[in-house]
């Protein structure tokens, strides 16, 4: 092959490399070896593996010609510089080859000719004869020996013909073999090989499966089965040869040994080493194609997602090394490594995405564009995914309540705006951006975006629902109803959309009524009535609920008599008198503002509390209250008091365990009724002290629950033993929420400390503020957060709760410390400064911290969004009162859009 040569006749380094690679690929081992040796002087890291490869190829070629001593010399040379694993295989092959020097299996022929041996023995002798290809001939002294010689020659010639592709001749040669011949299985083997080469996979597999497993062809068939895509049962000893043969059979010569080694390393848990074998030995790896190198690249860059945790971390480090300092073998490797790392970060369950996510994702996109060309649609999807990750909400820590915060609001906005700019048809990006705008208080941008969305995607149900939600925020209820109607027309099977529509209709009707347009209000409520369903527990569309709302609105704003009639109709179709009365009362509170309810209704409400209160009925009433509590500007104090009285009465009547369990499950959502819930829990425990569900409830309903992990686990074990799934689930929720509580209870306040030292002015005392790192042995951030939250909570607890807490202090907390924290809470000091006189001192366990190591500045970190000058700054919120001590289950909100 011509290549460029300078005038002096010495090839250029590039030309030499190109020629060397061609020689290597063509099997001209000596030429390739000599060229790579020269190139190795210039760049050992790149060319040494190729020197090794060419020497290995040369040694194997020598083995093929039975030049064993020459092959040993090459091996000795390799052993001076090649890694041991690179030459281990060659060593074994030389050994195997040396062992198979022709030895006249004279006894085998005689024993076969004898004909009296068992079949398995005859097969073994036949295998020995066939595998000894070097035998020149057999002395056919007797007819039996002649038959053996003829069969053996037929098999040898048949195999050779099959290898040369002369299928007909191969089949013809083995046809005369008799069924009782010791070589019969070899005939089957030849037929199987021919079927394989004729691409008759089914027949080939069938023939191979029929071979006796304890014979040579039965073991060799593993290579063909692998090439057919069937798992093989080859033993480890011949694995490498089998894989090499399989790779050759499937058109990938030279892959087998590398694959076998890489596989062995992977199965041994040496994932990085496995990757390196392929990386160093195959120039085409890694790649993105649909060839073997591409598929293996898919494997190595995606397996990290399914590895066990410790292995995954190590493999991530390996990928990180590829991306750092440009150590990628080629741009493809760098790009694939970046992609994998970014997907790992995106899939992480951490609340905050790592800071390196965005720059690495951008770098990956640049690499991808360079490799595949620019594509705005693809880029839009990529940016949209980034925006989605940055817009992930993170839960409030400790006792936090309120709206969830986004991980990185400004970053999410930038990413999603970019996504939309690249592809305006990307509806997902629009839908993701709208709530992010809302979180960033960019209401105008959000409204503008919603308007654009409805024009761009007029027939997208999710877009219409989002637009309707925006209209409700703006109190543009007519538009909201229109959007809900369009969404319903697009998908009549979604049960949520009619709920939204009815809610919007009711709000719009109320608006009309308040503006003294009762006719319009009635028309809208007629539409809501069309969507009503016969479902008593659907508080939005249930027919009795729609009728009750209508009656209440009519009574308040319209015709009182008509309203009373409507309420009578609603009463007759309601599930119970108490439910109707309670619903009507709540509706009146919601719609009536300061208008007093009629006396008759009031009497009905009070009377229904007297009539047969029960736990089952109480559950329904609690559900009603929970539903109405979520309505905007709703005050439920009076209704809570009413329900409290109802529950007190219901607790005195008989109830079953299941009724109590269901009631408590719903009462969890109403923290102000915990005392009443405790009554039911205590009553249930009187019947069964070990009941795990009510044990949990009883602990959690205390003024200050401090259920520790061992107690929780004991209850969980009992729940598992009983098969009590709700109790198991509650225990898991409690343990999960326990992990978010401050570690006050678990800190060894007393054990590790000396007696309180009044004089802390000895230069070795703690800093002004409380530094937990060196005093308590826990990270200061956690202790500081925990202490701050505890103090904030003390500041807003009522005196009775504080007194109850002081009587039952958290585990390990002294009364003195409690008093100190309480005095801080009462003083309203924003910066946490524990008085020195009460600061316990840690036993000396080494170097004490210097004052400069104080991590507690008393300031909360600035949230990400507040660093953006475009976003108005506001103070971070104070941890709220822990009104909910019980983990709150997700509420299957009937109108969660609102």
């Amino acid at each position, binding site marked *: 092959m011509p290549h460029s040569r300078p005038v002096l006749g010495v090839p250029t380094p590039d030309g030499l490399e190109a020629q060397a690679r061609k020689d290597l690929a063509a099997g001209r081992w000596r030429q390739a070896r000599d060229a790579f040796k020269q190139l190795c002087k210039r760049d050992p890291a790149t060319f040494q593996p190729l020197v090794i490869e060419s020497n290995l190829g040369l040694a194997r070629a020598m083995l093929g010609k039975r030049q064993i001593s020459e092959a040993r010399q090459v091996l000795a040379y390799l052993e001076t510089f090649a890694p041991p694993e690179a030459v281990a295989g060659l060593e074994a092959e030389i050994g195997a080859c040396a062992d198979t020097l022709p030895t006249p299996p004279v006894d085998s022929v005689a024993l076969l000719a004898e004909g009296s041996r068992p079949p398995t023995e005859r097969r073994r002798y036949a295998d020995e004869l066939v595998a000894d290809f070097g035998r020149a001939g057999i002395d056919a002294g007797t007819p039996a020996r002649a038959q053996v010689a003829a069969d053996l020659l037929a098999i040898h010639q048949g195999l050779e013909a099959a*290898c040369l592709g002369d299928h007909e001749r191969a089949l013809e040669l083995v046809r005369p073999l008799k069924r009782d011949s010791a070589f019969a299985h070899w005939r089957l083997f030849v037929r199987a090989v021919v079927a394989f080469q004729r691409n008759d996979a089914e027949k080939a597999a069938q023939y191979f499966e029929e071979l006796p497993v304890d014979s040579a062809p039965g073991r060799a068939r593993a290579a063909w089965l692998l090439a*057919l895509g069937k798992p093989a049962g080859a033993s480890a000893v011949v694995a490498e040869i089998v894989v090499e043969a399989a790779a*050759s059979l499937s058109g990938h010569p030279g892959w087998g040994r590398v694959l076998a080694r*890489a596989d062995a390393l992977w199965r041994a848990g040496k994932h990085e080493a496995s990757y390196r074998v392929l990386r160093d030995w195959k120039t085409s790896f890694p790649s993105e194609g649909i060839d073997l190198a591409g598929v293996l690249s898919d494997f190595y860059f995606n397996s990290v997602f399914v590895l066990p945790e410790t292995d995954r971390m190590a493999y991530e480090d390996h990928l990180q090394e590829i991306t750092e300092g440009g150590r990628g073998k080629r741009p493809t490797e760098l790009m694939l490594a970046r992609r994998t790392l970014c*997907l790992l970060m995106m899939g992480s369950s951490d609340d905050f995405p790592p800071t390196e996510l965005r720059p690495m994702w951008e770098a990956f996109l640049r690499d991808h564009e360079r490799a595949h060309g620019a594509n705005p*649609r693809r880029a839009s*999807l990529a940016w949209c995914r980034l925006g989605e990750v940055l817009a992930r909400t993170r839960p409030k820590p400790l006792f936090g309540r309120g709206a969830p915060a986004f991980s990185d609001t400004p970053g999410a906005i930038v990413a999603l705006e970019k996504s939309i700019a690249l592809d305006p048809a990307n509806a997902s990006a629009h839908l993701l951006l709208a709530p992010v705008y809302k979180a960033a208080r960019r209401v105008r941008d959000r409204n503008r975006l919603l308007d654009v969305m409805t024009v761009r995607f007029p027939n997208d149900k999710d877009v219409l629902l989002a637009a309707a939600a925006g209209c409700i925020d703006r109190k543009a209820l007519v538009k909201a109803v229109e959007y809900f109607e369009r969404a319903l027309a697009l998908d009549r099977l979604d049960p949520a959309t009619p709920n939204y529509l009815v809610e919007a209709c009711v709000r719009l009707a109320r608006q009309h009524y308040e503006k003294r347009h009762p006719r319009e209000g009635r028309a809208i409520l007629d539409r809501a009535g069309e969507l009503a369903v016969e479902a008593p527990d659907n508080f939005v569309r249930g027919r009795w609920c729609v009728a009750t709302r209508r009656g209440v609105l009519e009574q308040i704003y319209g015709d009182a008599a008509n309203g009373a009639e409507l309420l009578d109709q609603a009463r007759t179709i309601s599930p119970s008198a108490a439910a109707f009365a309670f619903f009507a009362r709540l509706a009146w509170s919601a719609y009536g503002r300061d208008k007093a309810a009629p006396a008759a209704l009031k009497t009905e409400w009070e009377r229904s509390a007297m009539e047969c209160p029960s736990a089952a009925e109480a559950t329904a009433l609690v559900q009603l209250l929970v539903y109405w509590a979520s309505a905007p500007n709703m005050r439920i104090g009076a209704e809570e008091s009413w329900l409290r009285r109802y529950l007190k009465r219901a607790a005195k009547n008989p109830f079953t365990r299941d009724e109590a369990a269901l009631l408590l499950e719903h009462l969890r959502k109403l923290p102000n009724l915990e005392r009443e819930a405790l009554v039911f829990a205590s009553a249930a425990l009187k019947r069964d002290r070990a009941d795990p569900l009510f044990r949990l409830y009883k602990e959690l309903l205390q003024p200050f629950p401090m259920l520790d992990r061992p107690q929780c686990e004991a209850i969980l074990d009992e729940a598992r033993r009983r098969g009590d799934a709700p109790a198991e689930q509650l225990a898991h929720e409690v343990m999960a929420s326990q992990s978010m509580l401050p570690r006050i209870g678990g800190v060894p306040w007393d054990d590790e400390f000396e007696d309180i030292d009044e004089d802390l002015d000895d230069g070795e005392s703690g800093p002004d503020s409380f530094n937990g790192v060196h005093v308590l042995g826990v990270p200061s951030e956690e202790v500081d957060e925990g202490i701050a939250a505890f103090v904030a909570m003390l500041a807003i607890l009522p005196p009775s709760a504080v007194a109850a807490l002081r009587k039952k202090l958290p585990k390990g907390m002294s009364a003195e410390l409690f008093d100190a924290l309480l005095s801080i809470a009462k003083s309203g000091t924003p910066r946490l400064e524990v008085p020195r006189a009460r600061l316990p001192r840690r036993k000396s366990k080494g170097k004490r911290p210097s004052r400069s190591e104080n991590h507690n500045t008393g300031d909360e970190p600035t949230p990400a969004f507040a660093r953006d000058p475009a976003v108005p700054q506001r103070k971070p919120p104070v941890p709220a009162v822990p009104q909910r001590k019980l983990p709150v289950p997700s509420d299957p909100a009937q109108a969660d859009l609102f």
Partner: protein
Amino acid sequence: MNPYLVLGVQMDADDHTIRRAYLDAIKLAPPDVEPKRFQAITTAYEQIRNEVSRHQHALFDHTPPGDSPLDVFIRYAQYHRQPQALSFEMMKQLLRACSKT
């Protein structure tokens, strides 16, 4: 497994080509005869049936194609069937090694 490999199309194939390949593939592997293969073909088609799904596959798919390098080779061989003959030398080596076990 790489959906392009499963369907036997190039990576720059368009919607029509991919659909054609899908229909041809399921004719050869009906669900009642080869349910696993049918499922694999259908999954592959869903992954690359249109431009958006192809981009999403290229950007975000992270399903490993096998449990180990050899397992990947076996699965690859199921879809990339181009049977070759062994050289006679390699045949001898293989049979000698197998006769010793």
